[in-house]
């Protein structure tokens, strides 16, 4: 199977497809599949394994296939109509980078001010702040804001809350100031606080 990009927090018991992409260079056949996406990155690229790597992947791999493939005059295009497999299988197999991100979790607790029972959310399932805020707005039935003005939860008129998080240093910060990937590395828990407190 095409070697995977490294997964976040790969543990030794994870599936074999999560071997680091450096190893996969020697294991793989030279005509690479699109899944071996981060091979051309320099060996000492920080293996934080977060979505940054995965997003750069496809464009690099296409270039790499240009390089490696000897017989075909042009790189094998990813046609959407051949071979004849159904859309769900197609996107599952070709979206392996996404698969690997979903293989591990980052569950954090979420509390809403005034409610003693909290919820838990897997932050790795989101690609950015807007998904997170949208979910929380639905979950807690309130309009949620963070510091990013473009991101806003669904409008539940009358109620407004602000999304905050506790970072590794124990400080409470407003969500949205740092890039999403960086946020994922420092967030420990979330709190939805009343707007007048901020």
């Amino acid at each position, binding site marked *: 199977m095409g070697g995977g990009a490294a997964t976040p927090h790969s*543990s030794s018991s994870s*599936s074999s497809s999560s071997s680091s992409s450096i190893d996969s260079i020697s294991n793989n056949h030279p005509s*690479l599949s699109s899944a071996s996406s981060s091979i051309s990155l320099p060996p000492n690229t920080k293996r934080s394994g977060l979505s940054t790597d995965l997003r750069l992947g496809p464009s690099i791999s296409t270039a790499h296939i240009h390089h490696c493939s000897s017989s075909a005059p042009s790189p*094998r295009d990813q046609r959407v109509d051949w071979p004849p*497999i159904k859309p769900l299988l197609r996107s599952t197999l070709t979206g392996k980078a996404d698969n690997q991100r979903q293989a591990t979790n980052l569950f954090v607790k979420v509390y809403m001010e005034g409610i003693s029972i909290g*919820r838990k959310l897997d932050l790795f399932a989101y690609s950015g702040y807007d998904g997170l805020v949208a979910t929380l707005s639905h979950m807690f039935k309130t309009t949620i804001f963070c510091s990013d003005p473009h991101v806003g939860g669904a409008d539940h008129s009358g109620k407004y809350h602000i999304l905050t998080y506790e970072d590794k240093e124990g400080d409470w910060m407003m969500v949205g100031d740092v890039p999403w990937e960086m946020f994922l590395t420092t967030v420990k828990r979330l709190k939805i606080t009343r707007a007048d407190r901020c």
Partner: protein
Amino acid sequence: MAYSFPEEVLEHVFSFIHTDKDRNAISLVCKSWYEVERWSRRRIFIGNCYAVSPGIVIRRFPELRSVALKGKPHFADFNLVPDGWGGNVYPWIAAMAMAYPMLEELRLKRMVVTDESLELISRSFKNFKVLVLSSCEGFSTDGLAAIAANCSGRFSEESRISSFDLLSFATFFLSNQTKRYNRFELKPACEVDIGSPISLIPDFAHHWCPSTFPAWPPRCPSLRTLRLNRAVPLDRLPNLLRRAPQLVELGTGAYSAEHRPEVFSSLAGAFSNCKELKSLSGFWDVVPDYLPAVYPACSGITSLNLSYATIQSPDLIKLVTQCQNLQRLWVLDYIEDSGLDALAASCKDLQELRVFPSEPYDMEGNVALTEQGLVSVSEGCPKLHSVLYFCRQMTNAALVSIAKNRPNMTRFRLCIIEPRTRDYQTLEPLDVGFGAIVEHCKELHRLSLSGLLTDRVFEYIGTHAKKLEMLSVAFAGDGDLGLHHVLSGCKSLRKLEIRDCPFGDKALLANAAKLETMRSLWMSSCSVSFGACKLLGQKMPRLNVEVMDERGRPDSRPESCSVEKLYIYRSVAGPRSDMPRFVWTMKTPS
């Protein structure tokens, strides 16, 4: 006739006649039988929703309880039919809402089903029991919530949900504790359009957590089928299984977790408790270490779907060889020839095998799966009759072996991934191999071809494949003669779908009458001219000849220009009125 049976007697006799074919036959006997039959028919299957109109169906069959409809052509599964083509079910629902208030079942395939349609269904049919949506699109969980609130539903695989609000759906469903659900499966596709729907999946998973809803499954001890969302983590599975040990069909969520012995033993215990389990699927993101937890249930398993399980051959072999009663296996080509050998040796009841490509776009791919694997299974499994096999190489000799080993084959679909691939040993086309298939397998009703093929293979097919009902052809043939052989020879042909073949006008026009005996013909990227389409449309009033061309109006180009796509189907409803801007019907001059 001196005496004839009173209608009540006829009706009673007809109540024992169930198949469509038989019912159609008795309705042709005489006028009174036609009348009795049409009032007593309760279920109908409409293979092409445009072949007939809702009004015509309702006029003839006033008392239907179960309706099945299919919309888009089969090649829509492979993105060959542009969005907006049609197949909207709403006009049918609206008409049936008035005419069939007692409707119980609706089965839709490849249709566009909007939330509006689902809401109308939930309001209109008081006795509604079964809804099956296969490969449908256009609805969101709002529509599903309306259904869940009012009736038990089955939403089957591959349906694309266009927006998510799983929270409201889950709440709706779970709060409806008085309803008895027999089967619940919700499998969102990876393609979703609006918002961040993937982000809402964990939320759904939360709602399936026993600690949030301790009464899960919501008082339905009759739950037979449960397919979990991929986001439901493995450590939740033991609890779910313990609450539904009577499950017959299970689709796991993500089958991966860090290795923890207590999760493993809990899972293994839960599986050994599921004595009724017959079908397993899911296995997303599978971690091989956890597979042995399934072994206690394997002896009862008859259907195993590992199409999403990206694990290697040794682990696959260990799992598959545990399932001695296996009848159906869907698996990725990671199984390799060695795995198929093991399958052939252990699973003597195997009837259906599907092997999918793990690397559909890779030029080399998994070379350890070859034609030999399929030959082994055909030798070792006497009941094998249905095959879908993706591979990268083939020989005529292998196909001949398979044909001779399995004359009971009914469905044979071979996809050699690189188009026009030759027999790699003799470098010849694969005509002789497929010829052997149609010659030996006299009951073959479905065939998909691939590899390098000349007109000869079509001659074999036309000569031998007398029971063939559906044929799929891609990148094959030399010219019109090939198409002519098929259309003139295959007596039972109902569906023909062709792409990227050099078939042109002559065969089509010469066999125009044949097209009225078939459900449909699809041709894309072939050499059929616009002029021929017009002529066909003029000659055959009971055919809808639809030209699809995204380059613009076909009459803005010379008549000899080939059309992009052509879809021809018989219809008693005349040309349809809901065509998008890229579809034109060739009308008969009035």
